[in-house]
């Protein structure tokens, strides 16, 4: 009965150590575990929804390592490298976190503080990298054309490598002005206009006989996108509706818009978790420094926030696999 009846008015941190606990886990730690479980189910809901849509469009889904090929300060194509770097940063910040927890068990205040600090830095590098990844994805790399029925067609040269719109299209400066709140209806605005018009792209394509068009369709034997003959390319281009550069929630130069939607939603939701994890880590870091846990004679709070941080890493492992690898 002692465990269920409140015998004292005030519950102290010392009591927390002496009490009998279910599963020998403290209340806070157990609740952190159950929160993590529910959050894991939320994330798996998103990733499985991604999987369902991918199975639905299995023949036309964008190939991820053709999309994320950029690394900072370089113009080459390096598939996977940057995401691999991000993964290592996050795993390493998990290591410093668990080292902080271990130092906490030994009641070494300075060590805990330094390891927490390293964890915060690692998290900040990760979020920064993700911001750069978003920026690159939004800006796009080659540009493409969206057809009347919404399909995306891209441009390739004779060797099958994608080429940029700029490389074969010249602008005639006939582009109308972007409609903003200042110069048009005050309650309507539109996003920035593409650099080229549809007519200019068609004209440029006709001048370059070596170019052809790549569709969204995947040849399952080679796991590459289908490349059309010159005649079929021209027929496809005649159906073109709009010039697309980059990706957003409405259109995506790499293929299915759903791919961009899931990318922004899943990595955004994960990035938000990393961000809040950094905030928690900073709070606990300052608590360590002012000696809160030294007085409490227990660094369990570091352990709890550590659980959350490892969970963020755990989710990234799955996002990495299902977004970039599979």
């Amino acid at each position, binding site marked *: 009965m002692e465990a269920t009846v409140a015998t004292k008015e005030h519950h102290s941190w010392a009591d927390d150590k002496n009490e009998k606990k279910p*599963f*020998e*886990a403290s209340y806070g730690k*157990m609740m952190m*575990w*159950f929160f*993590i*479980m529910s959050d*894991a*189910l939320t994330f*798996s*809901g998103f990733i*499985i*929804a991604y*999987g*369902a*849509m*991918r*199975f*639905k*469009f*299995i*023949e*036309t889904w964008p190939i991820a*390592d053709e999309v994320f090929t950029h690394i900072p300060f370089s113009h080459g194509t390096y*598939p*996977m490298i940057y995401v*691999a770097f991000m*993964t*290592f940063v996050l*795993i390493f910040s*998990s*290591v410093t*976190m*668990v*080292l902080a*927890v*271990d130092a906490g*068990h030994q009641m070494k205040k300075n060590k805990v503080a330094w390891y927490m600090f390293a964890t915060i830095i690692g998290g900040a590098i990760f979020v920064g990298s993700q911001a750069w990844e978003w920026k690159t994805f939004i800006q796009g790399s080659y540009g493409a054309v969206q057809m009347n029925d919404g399909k995306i067609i891209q441009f390739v040269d004779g060797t099958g490598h994608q080429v940029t719109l700029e490389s074969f299209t010249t602008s005639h400066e006939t582009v109308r002005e972007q409609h903003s709140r200042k110069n048009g209806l005050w309650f309507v605005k539109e996003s920035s206009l593409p650099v080229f018009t549809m007519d200019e792209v068609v004209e440029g394509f006709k001048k370059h006989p070596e170019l052809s068009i790549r569709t969204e*369709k995947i040849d*399952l*034997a080679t*796991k590459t996108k289908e490349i059309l003959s010159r005649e*079929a390319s021209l*027929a*496809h281009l005649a*159906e073109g509706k709009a010039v697309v550069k980059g990706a957003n929630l409405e259109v995506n130069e790499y293929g299915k818009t759903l791919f961009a939607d899931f990318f922004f939603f899943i990595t955004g939701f994960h990035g938000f978790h990393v961000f809040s994890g950094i905030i928690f880590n900073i709070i606990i870091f300052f608590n360590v420094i002012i000696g809160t846990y030294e007085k409490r004679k227990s660094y369990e709070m570091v*352990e709890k926030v*550590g*659980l959350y941080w*490892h*969970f963020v890493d*755990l989710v990234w*492992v*799955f996002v*990495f*696999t299902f977004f*970039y*690898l*599979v």
Partner: protein
Amino acid sequence: MAEHGHTSTLLYGLVKPKNNVSKIWWVFGFLSIITIIEVALGIYKPKSLHLSSLESSIHWSIDWFLNLITFGGTSPLNWIFIVLTLIKAYGITWAFMHMDGEKKWFRRSIVWTTIFLICYLALILLIEGSYLHDVMGPYVKWDY
């Protein structure tokens, strides 16, 4: 907190680190190696592990083996990725989150519940996804 004071072993006693810190670095090395393998496979994507290359090289394989491999609806390469990911998840949960130090039934209440619900949801939705593909695929126009 069972991990206080003594160091727990890794991989059911296969690895016995000196102390907690060396255990952490051991796990880090383990996770790094798996990640490097994943990235290497992701970049080079060996053709022999694609679904279609298995179907075309049917002369060396027997039917039941092919069925076993293609049963999951995806290529052997993707299954390798998924298995490696689950191993990584195990490493993070057991070593870094100290799941190995929790009471058996507390651990099971978390792990079994999560795995069961995820498998259930994945099964339902992926079947639904491929059904949608089978039904709607033929109506997508590709000739212009």
